[in-house]
């Protein structure tokens, strides 16, 4: 049997036998080299209560080349692309080591959720949000966890998930009052959300960005 296959089979079996880590590995198709991993969001973070799925590709020269991983579940995090799920993590790049495994790499992703590194961002807009207002960032991350990862509804007092329609303003991490304010000037709501998100119209930044500047952006085609 080929070395890579033997090692991967062993790793999948080890992961199945270990119930304590709550890390799961599933086949995606016929190939044992395309997997789906998942883990619970770490406690005490905005990702708590959610379950996060990761697409895993095992390269031909594994374990001498790093695993390829990206989030399937949308995650609001400075080191994860909010659009594509691409991950910025050193061990998936130049800090890879052949003694790392599927499980240990997924555990590293889990701990990345605990400790964002905004200085080396994958998603610059999310990183700016994180740097500008931590509480607003966490609120948005919690909302994404609820919408995409099955986490509890942050608005429900009891913490249970209560359905409800998706709130585009909360998704973008903005204040409803700000969006209303510019929408009242006659701009389309979706465009207002887009512009305010790009400008990082949050927290202390709001006082630094003039209304004219926002309007100027809104007028751009």
């Amino acid at each position, binding site marked *: 049997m*080929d*070395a890579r296959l*033997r*090692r991967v089979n*062993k*790793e999948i079996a080890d992961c199945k036998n270990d119930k304590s880590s709550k890390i799961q590995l599933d086949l995606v198709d016929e190939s044992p080299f395309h997997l789906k991993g998942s883990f619970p969001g770490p406690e005490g973070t905005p990702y708590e209560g959610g379950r996060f799925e990761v697409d895993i590709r095992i390269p031909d020269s594994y*374990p*001498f080349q790093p695993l390829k991983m990206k989030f399937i579940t949308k995650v609001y995090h400075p080191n994860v692309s909010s659009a594509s799920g691409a991950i910025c993590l050193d061990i998936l790049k130049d800090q890879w*080591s*052949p*003694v790392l495994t599927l499980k240990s790499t997924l555990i590293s992703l889990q701990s990345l959720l605990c400790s964002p590194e905004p200085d080396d961002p994958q998603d610059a807009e999310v990183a700016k949000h994180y740097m500008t207002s931590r509480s607003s960032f966490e609120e948005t991350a919690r909302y994404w966890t609820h919408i995409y990862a099955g986490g509890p509804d942050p608005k429900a007092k009891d913490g249970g998930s209560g359905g409800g329609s998706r709130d585009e303003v909360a998704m973008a991490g903005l204040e409803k009052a700000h969006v209303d304010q510019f929408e009242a000037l006659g701009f389309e709501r979706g465009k207002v959300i887009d512009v305010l998100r790009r400008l990082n119209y949050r927290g202390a930044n709001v006082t630094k960005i003039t209304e004219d500047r926002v309007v100027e952006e809104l007028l751009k085609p």
Partner: protein
Amino acid sequence: MKVTIKNWNAIAQWRWDIGKEFDETDDEDLCGICRVAYEGCCPRCKMPGDDCPVLWGECGHVYHMHCIMQWIEQQPPNKQNCPMDRKPWITAERKTANTATQQTQAVQS
């Protein structure tokens, strides 16, 4: 009573002396790179033994020679580190490296 030995088969067992008792359930006895026991050969080889030896680093970590060499050779010179502790890899001189312990027993049939 007189016993006549008509036929016998020799069975030999050997293992690398890695300085501790072998425990199959323990990850410590597996090459961290290929996850095969040190006793077995690396995935590229067919037969365990002197053709597929194990190598010690000065840091104390042990790998199949073929496994660690494949890793070291693909790394740039400034990053030829031990995969476990990321310290620069230096192969340790070790006297016991070639003395596989051996026991032979005769089976009567």
